[in-house]
């Protein structure tokens, strides 16, 4: 464990797998931007299409200003710094006829259009699949509606945490004696983003056979994949599954136990999971307590599970004497699965995170070096870590109009003047 947080800048990678692919990213909130940043790291050129007034001038959660550069708080918004990495920024007004015309010109030069509006919005813009595919038969149009593009809930609105509730996952998540809880902060969004990235690459693979196509990723249906065994299981057993917190359905000890404060943090814990007799015996080689070893209530896996409340209390009494990092190492060496309960702060100090660069640094012009996690796989021949920090607002509007679309200086000036496009943040 490093005493200080460390951030190693991500290396450049010239051989990313989606090099040459261009994505028009119309997404907002969390799910769509996650899909787009994954595609960006994989090598796609992602143009984040933002409305000219998209960002608040004084965001509530602005990151610290680096000092020696212009102070533009809208370029330091924490959420965007997290979610817009590996992209470029183009400001277009799709409610403006000329803005839509520019977008359709971009479609001709793109491979993927990605959006997560309510189902009716693209139609209101006049940018349905038929229109896009007429301009570019190879285009892949990925939509990420909350409930799907059909069905009685089609026009309901929801964000990710609301879908967690509708999927059953919130109902299932919680303490054994408690109410439903969220399964994470934006869990459904992250899950939908990953599914959409998977589906997009699959559609690219099949493009040589079927040209472009639509891809519909309903956030709800993506999340239902993750609790399929609960849905199938309740039909088989006739019983509703219950909230079990950190417990295992048949093994003990299996929980989270308090420890000595580590790195000055009173909220310090260790997770220990003994799934079989071997792992229990491994725990006992470190937890050298004869009264536990000889206690008949803990003699078999079934007995330990039946008496888990007593066992957990004994274990809590023991773990709270130790540092969670040192104790985890001792338990792992003995063969018992254990881990300190890490957090973002401790992960930035962790030797495994540093060795694998699970979280690396991206250089932002107004914020400086900023952390960004990378996807959980490493490709041996075509590495694909995050490639650039969140772009400054509209920084790429003019270069894209000029170089990608070949517009004249006069036309660009007209588009900026009319408000169809923008090279800076505007008032609505």
């Amino acid at each position, binding site marked *: 464990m490093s005493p200080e947080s460390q951030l190693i800048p991500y290396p450049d990678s010239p051989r990313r797998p989606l090099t040459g692919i261009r994505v028009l990213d119309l997404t907002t909130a969390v799910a769509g931007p996650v899909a787009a940043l994954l595609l960006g790291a994989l090598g796609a050129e992602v143009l984040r299409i933002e409305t000219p007034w998209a960002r608040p001038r004084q965001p509530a959660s602005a990151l610290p200003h680096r000092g020696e550069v212009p102070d533009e708080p809208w370029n330091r918004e924490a959420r965007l710094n997290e979610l817009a990495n590996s992209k470029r920024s183009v400001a277009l007004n799709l409610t403006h006829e000329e803005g839509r015309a520019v977008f359709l010109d971009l479609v001709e030069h793109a491979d993927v259009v990605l959006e997560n509006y309510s189902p009716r919005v693209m139609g209101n813009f006049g940018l349905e699949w038929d229109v896009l595919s007429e301009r570019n038969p190879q285009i892949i149009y990925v939509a990420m509606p909350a409930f799907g593009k059909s069905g009685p809930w089609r026009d309901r609105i929801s964000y990710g945490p609301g879908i967690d509730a509708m999927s059953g996952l919130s109902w299932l998540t919680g303490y054994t004696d408690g109410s439903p809880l969220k399964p994470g902060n934006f869990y459904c969004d992250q899950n939908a983003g990953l599914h959409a990235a998977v589906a997009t690459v699959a559609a690219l693979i099949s493009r040589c056979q079927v040209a472009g196509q639509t891809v*519909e990723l309903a956030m709800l249906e993506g999340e239902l994949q993750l609790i399929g065994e609960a849905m199938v299981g309740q039909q088989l057993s006739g019983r509703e599954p219950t909230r079990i917190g950190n417990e295992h359905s048949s093994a003990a000890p299996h929980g989270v136990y308090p420890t000595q404060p580590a790195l000055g943090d009173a909220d310090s814990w260790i997770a220990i999971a003994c799934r079989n007799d071997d792992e229990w015996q491994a725990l006992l080689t470190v937890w050298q307590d004869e009264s536990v070893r000889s206690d008949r209530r803990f003699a078999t896996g079934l007995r330990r599970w039946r008496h888990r409340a007593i066992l957990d209390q004994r274990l809590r009494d023991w773990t709270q004497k130790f540092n969670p990092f040192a104790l985890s190492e001792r338990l792992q060496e003995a063969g018992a699965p254990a881990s300190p309960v890490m957090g973002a702060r401790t992960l930035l100090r962790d030797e495994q995170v540093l060795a694998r660069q699970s979280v690396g640094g991206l250089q932002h012009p107004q914020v400086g070096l900023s952390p960004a996690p990378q996807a959980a796989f490493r490709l041996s*021949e075509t590495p694909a870590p995050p490639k650039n920090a969140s772009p400054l607002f509209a920084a790429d509007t003019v270069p894209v109009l000029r170089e990608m679309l070949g517009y004249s200086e006069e036309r660009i000036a007209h588009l900026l003047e009319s408000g169809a496009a923008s090279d800076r943040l505007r008032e609505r």
Partner: protein
Amino acid sequence: MTERDPEIAPGPLDGVSVVELSETSAGAYCGRLLAGMGAAVTMLEPHTGSPIRRSGPFRDDTPDIEGGATHLHLNRRKGSLRLRLESRAGQRLLDQLLGDTDVLIIDIDRRRWSANGIDPDGFRSRHGQLHVCTISPYGTQGPKSQWLGSELTLYAAGGYLRIGGEPDREPIKAWGEQGHLQAGLHAALGVLSALYANAGGQHVDTAIYEALAFLLGGGYQHAWFSDSEPLRNGARLVGFGPGHLYPSTIRPCMDGWIHAHCNNRYPEAMAVLFEQPRLAEAGLLSTLMGHADEVDELMAPMLMRTPRREVVKRAQELRIPFTEVLAPSEVVADADGHHESRGFWQSTPHPRDGEYQAPGPAVRFGRTRWIDGSAPGLGQDNGRLGTPAERVRWRRAGVA
């Protein structure tokens, strides 16, 4: 080009062959995604069957190697070969199979790789176009690469455990095997990227703890710039820095719970919904999280006298994104017919008798399709291995 008939269109991965060695839901979900998108996925199982088969619930609570809920969900539309990899002959057979394989998924305990002849570099050197996807708790490199991991300890190792639960209690993870399933998703993205890159066979080295660390997203900004950890926040969103949003929370109502989502927007509509003019006053919803307890109190009277379906109906009419907290049985029962109208639940034959409703497509393609099927019987495809004479020899030797 017109839309293809979805009944006859192939999956986007039609023609891709995958061999899956999975002991956990991470590899199994990676395989399910590839199978659903049209790849031919064959599970390679030990004689006792994959451990996934032993995960319940089971019909009538009777353990059944063919009828566990996780197997019936995650292993649909896969084949199964029963093979003794501990034997040299079994390892040779695997190597033979890999000659016609595009992707090998390895998700078995690293301590048994050697005894089972699992050697990702060796496989790749003998089969130049083979993509080898390993899924392990901490990845194959780094000081913790030999550490053991379970769903719970990896939740802890990836930092996602810390933000779940009540602030004055121990942190808790989400239900099920979300960490392993997320790792399966990452692995699938890595495999597809390798297939698309067409740069020769690749090693796709997936670490389960990293799939959880990825979920922390903005938490790293908070930690890097303020050197502090956010505290879990019960049913409310965890705030990273000063930008707490409210309400995005689960609240009790007359007959259950609803998810209330407003996040400092729609103050007038909120005041109408709850018949509480205070909710529209400047400084309440516009003050981030500062009045969360008061907002809860203002919502409570209406919630406690109104059924959740009615609460959500009224909120949605006002374009406030509230939803019901549904139990699994209610999701399957589908009272509004939403899933039925989309053909989501798939009637699937149970291996013993009757049918069950299984989740359908994760994604819907316009010109290719998602394909579902049944979970395979253990070793159901052994008959397609080798010649009849070889099969007799392997059976006698206890290999296959």
